[in-house]
């Protein structure tokens, strides 16, 4: 059974992602302990809230996550994905984990477009064949809630989504993958992604 560490900052809803991974057959450890993270086969960085606070919470685990990412698959979800990138311009400039090249940027304000980008939108595959997206169609509906977007090169972009502008909704560099949406809130498509991460990545 795959042991998946879900990093627990003590904030937000971790129950849904835990149950989603368990459905995929994972043994989930909700943990804030570097030793436990190190002992697992996969790491999930969930995330709600602001980038700077998220990175502060992550600081005690930063070194171990960076090291483990050379060895095991890592999945960042929403803010967790944004923290995989190099930097964020959310309330100042802040450094991220730098596992995926790119920056987190603020949506430009455009009349008629509300921020946060909240609700169901489509992801469109930019590169075929990644095991995380196994069994999914060219376009699938998933649930988003975010006010900042990931700006990455096309080489590290598995999927794009369009809201105000086209942005990276699934990214990958090596073992590090990130999804801007919430797979644990995206019904069957989301559960398939969590299953793919657990079994195929």
């Amino acid at each position, binding site marked *: 059974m795959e042991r998946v560490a879900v990093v627990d900052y003590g*904030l*937000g*809803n*971790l*129950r*849904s992602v835990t*149950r*989603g991974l368990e459905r995929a057959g994972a043994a989930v450890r909700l943990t804030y302990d570097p030793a436990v993270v190190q002992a697992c086969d996969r790491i999930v960085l969930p995330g*709600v*809230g*602001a980038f700077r*606070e998220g990175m502060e919470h992550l600081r005690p685990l930063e070194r171990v996550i960076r090291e483990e990412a050379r060895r095991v698959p890592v999945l960042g979800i929403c*803010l967790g994905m944004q923290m995989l990138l190099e930097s964020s311009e959310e309330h100042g400039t802040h450094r991220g984990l730098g596992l995926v090249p790119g920056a987190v940027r603020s949506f430009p*304000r455009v009349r008629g477009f*509300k*921020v*946060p*980008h*909240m*609700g*169901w*939108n*489509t992801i*469109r595959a930019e590169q075929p064949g990644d095991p995380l997206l196994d069994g999914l169609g*060219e*376009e699938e*509906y998933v*649930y*988003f*809630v*975010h*006010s900042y977007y990931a700006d990455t090169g096309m080489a590290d972009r598995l999927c794009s*989504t*369009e*809201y105000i502008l086209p942005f990276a909704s699934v990214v990958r560099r090596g073992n590090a993958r990130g999804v801007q949406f*919430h797979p*644990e*809130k*995206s*019904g*069957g498509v*989301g*559960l398939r992604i969590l299953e793919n991460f657990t079994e195929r990545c």
Partner: protein
Amino acid sequence: MGTMVLTKRIIPCLDIKEGRVVKGTNFIGLRDAGDPVELAARYNEQGADEVVFLDITASSEGRGTIVEVIERAADQLFLPLTVGGGIRSTDDIRLILRAGADKVSVNTSAVERPSLIREAAEAFGTQCIVVAIDVRRNMEPNPIATPVTQADGRSCWYEVVTYGGNRPTGIDAIAWAREVEALGAGEVLLTSMETDGTKDGFDLPITAKVSEAVGIPVVASGGVGKLEHFYDGLVIGKADAVLAASVFHYGELTVRDVKQYLAGRGVPVRP
């Protein structure tokens, strides 16, 4: 290739008392009608984009029941869940989110202590704080309030009301909507007491005015009775999402009926 666009959300709301579903008309005359998780699962199958649980349990000893309901819902359903009712502090919010809710909705407590919105947004993120705003039309002249033109051409203003619509506050609804956005709310859930429970449709003038006044999403609530009302709320009312309770609850319409109707009229919805 489909068109990539953020879809409009259809959100069933379940009123819950001591762990059981109820639905009141104008918040009076409640009827018990079952297990909230089962009902939410049915809405999920129909294509609901989110579900709202509104806890109307009055007694403090009964309030723990909602946590168990949220946990069961989160274990079985993988769609966004908002929980409102009686939330007064960041500790309350932490408990609700931890149980498996994605967003919390605050209402009276935010009017009485607006700093709750900022504290909650800072602790948990803007995206999970919904501010529910209940409003009532006020025809008394008020030079500092934002005028809203009614369908008949008359002008009035809308006043924020609390405690389930019972208590007028003197606060201008538009000003309050802007303030909650500035304090860090991620969404506004707007209910007009003029239309709530009537099945005559949403209160479109105030819905459009609030939606244009803020940069965050607005959910229209109160008064939906038939298919056209959903369209009107989204198109004329400019809402980003529509919430309904009794039309879904009593099976008059399914979420799927609504989505098929909206798609037929060119409104983007998730199939």
